[in-house]
C-alpha cells in the first residue's frame, strides 16, 4: 500500500503486529498520531522508550515492578504464608482486582509445553522451591489455566513441592457465578457434575 511515507507505513506495520490490533486499527492509530500535537506524541514515545528500561520483574515473585521487589512482596500487611502461582502477570492483575486474595504471588511467565520447547527450566521456577522453604510458606495455590498445559504445570509444581510438606491446592473449576445451567457448556457442566460438592 502507498502511504507517501515509509515512516508511516512502518509504524502501521508495527502497530498491526500487536495483539488485538488488525490492519485497519493500526492504520487509524498511526494516522491519529500524525494529527496529534507534537507534545503528546513525544510523551508517548518517551513512555514507550522508558518501558523496557524502568519496568522489570520482581526478584522474589516475578511480578511487574519498577523496583527490585514489587509492592505486593514488600507489603507487610499481606499474608506471607500463602503463595498463589499464576502463568502471566496478566493473571496476577486479574486476581488482585478481586480484592479477595491477601497472600503473595509467584509468576511463572509461561506454562510447560514441550511442543513449543518450553520445559521447567524456561519458567520462573528455579528459585521457587527455595522461596517456599526459606519463607516457611504453608500453602501454595496453583492458579494456572484449566488447559492440558496448565494442568501439567500444576502437577509439576505439586510434585516439586511434595518433599516440603506444604499444602498445594488448585483453583476450583465448575460453574461460573451467576450463570444459569442453560448457558453452561457441556464440558464445564460435566466437570461440575463429576466434582460436585456436598451441601
Amino acid at each position, binding site marked *: 500500500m502507498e502511504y507517501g511515507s515509509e515512516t508511516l507505513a512502518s509504524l502501521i506495520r508495527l502497530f498491526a503486529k500487536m495483539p488485538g490490533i488488525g490492519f485497519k486499527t493500526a492504520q487509524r492509530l498511526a494516522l491519529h498520531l500524525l494529527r496529534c500535537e507534537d507534545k503528546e506524541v513525544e510523551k508517548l514515545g518517551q513512555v514507550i522508550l522508558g518501558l523496557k528500561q524502568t519496568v522489570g520483574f520482581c526478584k522474589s515473585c516475578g511480578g511487574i515492578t519498577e523496583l527490585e521487589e514489587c509492592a505486593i512482596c514488600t507489603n507487610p500487611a499481606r499474608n506471607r504464608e500463602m503463595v498463589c502461582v499464576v502463568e502471566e502477570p496478566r493473571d496476577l492483575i486479574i486476581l488482585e482486582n478481586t480484592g479477595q486474595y491477601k497472600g503473595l504471588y509467584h509468576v511463572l511467565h509461561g506454562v*510447560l*509445553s*514441550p*511442543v513449543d*520447547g518450553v*520445559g*521447567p*527450566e524456561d519458567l520462573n521456577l528455579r528459585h521457587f522451591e527455595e522461596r517456599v522453604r526459606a519463607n516457611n510458606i504453608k500453602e501454595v495455590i496453583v492458579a494456572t489455566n484449566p488447559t*492440558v*498445559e496448565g*494442568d*501439567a*504445570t500444576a*502437577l*509439576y509444581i505439586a*510434585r516439586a513441592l511434595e518433599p516440603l510438606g506444604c499444602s498445594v491446592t488448585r483453583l476450583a473449576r465448575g460453574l461460573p457465578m451467576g450463570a444459569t445451567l442453560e448457558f453452561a457448556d*457441556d*464440558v464445564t457442566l*460435566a466437570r461440575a457434575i463429576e466434582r460436585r460438592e456436598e451441601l
Partner: protein
Amino acid sequence: MRIDRLTSSDFRNLIHEPLSFSPGVNLVVGENGHGKTNVLEAIYFFKFGRSFRTSRDSELIRFEEPLLRIVIEAETRVDDREAFEAAIERKGAKRIKLNGKEVPKYSELVGRYPCVLFGPHDLALTSGQPAERRRFLDMVGSLTDPGYLAVLRAYRRVLAQRNAALKTDTASALGVWTEELIEQGCHLVRRRVDVVEAIRKHMISHIEKLQVRYPIRVGYESELTNSQPADVTHQEHFAARLAGREFDEIRRGTTLVGPHRDDMTLVVDGHDLRRYGSQGQRRLVAVLLRLAELSYVEEQLREPCVLLLDDLFSELDERVVDHLKGALDDNRQIFVTSPVDLSWDAAGTQIFRVNHGQVGPVPQP
C-alpha cells in the same frame, strides 16, 4: 431429522435446481462417475462440517471456480425449519451458518444433524487399520456423549506434548506428562469401552433380524484393559506399562502405550475377522456396525436419523438388502445411490437422475 431441500452451486460437478426430497425413499440413479455420490456427500456435509471422502475442502469446489455453496433445509428435533449453509473458498476461507448465524466451532454441529452413511468405504471398518476403528468409536462417542470430544482432544494434546517431551531433553518434566497421559488416557479408555458396549448391545437385534448363523463378538482391545491384573487400578496398570517401555519410548521419541494404539476386536465364528474374515463376512459386519451406530445414535438423540446408502446393494446379499429396506418401516428418510434403477416399491419414492453432474427429479407415472 428430515431433509427437505438441497441447493448447491459449484459443489463438485453438480448442476441442479433446488432439489425437493421425499420424506421417504429418494433414489439417486445414474452411471458411474457421473456424480451420484456427490449428492450424498453434499447432504452428509453438515454432520461434522466436512466431507466423508476428503479432508481437503478445496477439492470439493468445481474446477476453476472460486467458491462453493451448499444449503440444506431440514426439519430437526430442534426446529421444524432449519437452514444449514456452507460456503468454502478456494483460498481456504470456510463458513458454516446455522439459520443465518455463523457457527464458530463445527463441534456445535455434532448431534444437530443426525445421519448415518453406509458405503463401500465401510469395508475399512473391518479390513482396514486399527485407526479406522478408533475413528469409528470416537465418532459414535462424540455423537452420543457431549464430553467425549473434550476428552479426546485433551488426550491428543497431552500425547503431542509428551511425544515432544520424549524427543527434546526436558526429561525433568516427562513425569508430569506421563501422569497427565494416564489421567486423560483412562478417561478416554473408559468412554471407548462404554461405546463398544453400546455398539455390542445394539448389534444384537440386527444380528437376529438378519438371521446371521454364526456368533459375532465385538470388544475393545487395549493393552491397558486386556492384560490388567484384577488387583490394580487402570491408572496403576497404565503407569506400569509405560514404565516398562520408557527406554524404548525415549529412544524412539514417541509414546508407545495408550488408547491411541487401541483397536476394536471383531470376532466372527471364533476367528479374528480383521485377519481371517471372508469378503462377505467383512462386508456384513461393516453393515452391522453401521446399523448399531444408527440404533445407538437414535436412542441417544431420540430422533430418527437420515440414512445415506451409497452404492450398497450391488455388493450385499438379499437378506441384508431387505433388512435395510425394512428400516423404512421406522419412518426414516433414505437416500440411495445406484447405477441401475432399483425396484423399491415404497409409496412416495422419488427418483433423481444424475447425468454428467446434472441432477433432476424423474416425474412419477
